[in-house]
């Protein structure tokens, strides 16, 4: 009953145009007050908001957003994509594919979907639009490919999953690599198919001369020092982790420092005024995402208090299904949960309850972790709580959520294809970890 009231309040607030973070906070605290009382609710509101934002690994989000803003305002993004254009010039939709590739590479730096989407998006989307790519396709590719951040290691979600299930983090990380690359490939294949068949989907193909030019061979940018410097960003950030200098979260600050040196010092494309703007704009985006985290945590906390995910999961458990039936049911459950909940919340709330069922049905926990995370990736681009939708939408004033959503949909469907492949062929996930024994 309280749950229904919460949902009604949430949707009423959303329709009225109240910011989503506040709508989640209001409906979450409302359900909480109805269940426990007004005074505890008053206490819990700020307390939960505080404790869920107060997490060191979240620091990567503002720092990677800041890095992206510096690269953007310092025009390093253009360098990166000029280079990507050189690399992918023979492919139709080259820049979209470059953005997907960049997301997959960046995912090896970042453990979160939102940070990946924000960084690659702030660099690539303006470039793609400038070069005449369909703006929805540009947004969709980045929103969905950004979610590779939690599948390709390192991954915050896989670490949480390991904590709850006892499955090895190392094996989970290995298991995420091939499915992550496969998804990137599926996204790229879709992009080629859409943009190559101009008659099949004219709206999705690049229309401006610049974009066509890349395919016909003229206007190919020469290789510059700036390009190499921008590319080296990935080497510097990854290198700092692999050399043991910094943790995955701290590496974001190294990325910021490198971006500053590159644009402020070497290329001199970023002056004091632009740096100020870059900082203010990164505040704007970071705080928006951080408040969504606060809102999602208060809302999710009340859902667990009302035992909504628990009830659904134990009901599934009670059906006594065969392995394949169970997996299908679970995927439906996670696709629905993914609409409303953040990945971390969904894992922490449901996996402990499903664990006995998984063990009873002899489902490999490493494999299931990968399946779960792919579901969460899709959840990041499904409304109403779709973090990557929000992130990409916030990157440009021209975007409405509907634009991003419609652009994401085909890529999300490719994600479903990838999910099905991993379910049918578990080796895609399990082959790499099997080599360690």
């Amino acid at each position: 009953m309280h749950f229904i009231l919460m949902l009604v309040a949430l949707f009423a607030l959303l329709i009225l145009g109240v910011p989503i973070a506040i709508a989640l906070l209001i409906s979450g605290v409302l359900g909480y007050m109805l269940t426990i009382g007004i005074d505890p609710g008053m206490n819990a509101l700020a307390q939960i908001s505080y404790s869920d934002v107060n997490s060191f690994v979240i620091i990567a989000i503002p720092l990677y957003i800041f890095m992206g803003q510096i690269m953007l305002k310092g025009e390093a993004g253009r360098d990166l994509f000029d280079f990507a254009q050189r690399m992918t010039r023979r492919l139709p939709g080259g820049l979209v594919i470059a953005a997907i590739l960049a997301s997959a590479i960046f995912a090896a730096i970042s453990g979160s979907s939102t940070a990946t989407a924000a960084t690659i998006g702030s660099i690539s989307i303006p470039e793609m639009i400038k070069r005449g790519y369909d703006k929805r396709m540009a947004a969709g590719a980045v929103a969905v490919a950004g979610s590779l951040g939690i599948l390709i290691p390192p991954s915050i979600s896989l670490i949480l999953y390991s904590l709850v299930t006892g499955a090895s983090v190392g094996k989970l990380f290995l298991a995420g690599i091939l499915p992550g690359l496969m998804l990137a490939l599926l996204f790229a294949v879709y992009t080629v198919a859409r943009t190559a068949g101009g008659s099949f989907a004219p709206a999705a193909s690049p229309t401006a001369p610049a974009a066509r030019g890349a395919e016909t061979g003229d206007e190919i940018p020469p290789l510059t020092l700036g390009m190499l410097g921008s590319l080296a960003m990935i080497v510097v950030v990854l290198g700092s982790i692999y050399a043991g200098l910094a943790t995955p979260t701290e590496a974001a600050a190294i990325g910021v420092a490198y971006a500053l040196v590159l644009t402020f010092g070497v290329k001199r494309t970023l002056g004091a005024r632009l740096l100020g703007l870059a900082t203010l704009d990164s505040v704007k985006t970071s705080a928006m995402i951080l408040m969504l985290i606060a809102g999602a945590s208060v809302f999710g906390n009340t859902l667990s208090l009302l035992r909504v995910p628990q009830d659904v999961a134990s009901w599934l458990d009670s059906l006594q299904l065969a392995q394949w039936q169970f997996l299908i049911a679970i995927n439906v459950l996670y696709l629905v949960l993914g609409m409303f909940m953040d990945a971390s919340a969904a894992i922490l709330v449901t996996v402990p309850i499903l664990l006995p069922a998984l063990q009873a049905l002899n489902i490999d926990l490493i494999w299931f972790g990968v399946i779960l995370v792919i579901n969460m990736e899709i959840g990041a681009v499904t409304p109403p709580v779709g973090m990557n939708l929000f992130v990409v939408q916030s990157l440009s004033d021209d975007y409405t959520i509907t634009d991003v959503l419609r652009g994401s949909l085909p890529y999300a469907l490719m994600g479903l294809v990838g999910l099905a492949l991993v379910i049918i062929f578990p080796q895609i996930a399990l082959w790499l970890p099997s080599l360690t024994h």
Partner: protein
Amino acid sequence: MSSERSSLSHAGSTRRPALAGAAAVFGWVGVAAGVIAAAITLTLTASVLLGITLRSMSIDNSWTYDLDNFALIWLAFVGAAYTGYRGSHVTSGISLEHLFGRGAIVLALLRFVLVAGFLAVFVYSGWTQFHSSWMFNEKTLDIAQWPVWVAKLALPVGGAAWLAAEIHKLLALLAGSAPASTEPAD
């Protein structure tokens, strides 16, 4: 869905100068929040880099770790006020304004009452968190032993600044001058 930029305001002509003046005063709070949060972003970057440096020189870095977390909290809640000032918190983007036509001002008022009412509750809630942390002399658990109220103070301060930003937008709207949120954002 889109961010909460209002389509109601008409840029240029200011019909009610007194209201516009009041709007400007509240607007300063929003700008100040942005400047503070920007300084905190730079501090956060420097602090994380310093933590890496200290560790690699085998020096205890627990104080930079605490500073990182404190900066994050201030960035989140004070930054949220600036995001509010810029009108960049994401909304569902369903545009009821079109249904209401000229009565859209009623919708804007209703939205203001909900958001501002909530923020007032949030300020109170944040204040109690700050206050109890202060009373119990709560400290971080490592050697640095920082007083935690410093971080928790961001809750009421950020909430109040956000409330000021919302008041600014409403006054600017009523005054007929463009609220900050309709200025080009990037």
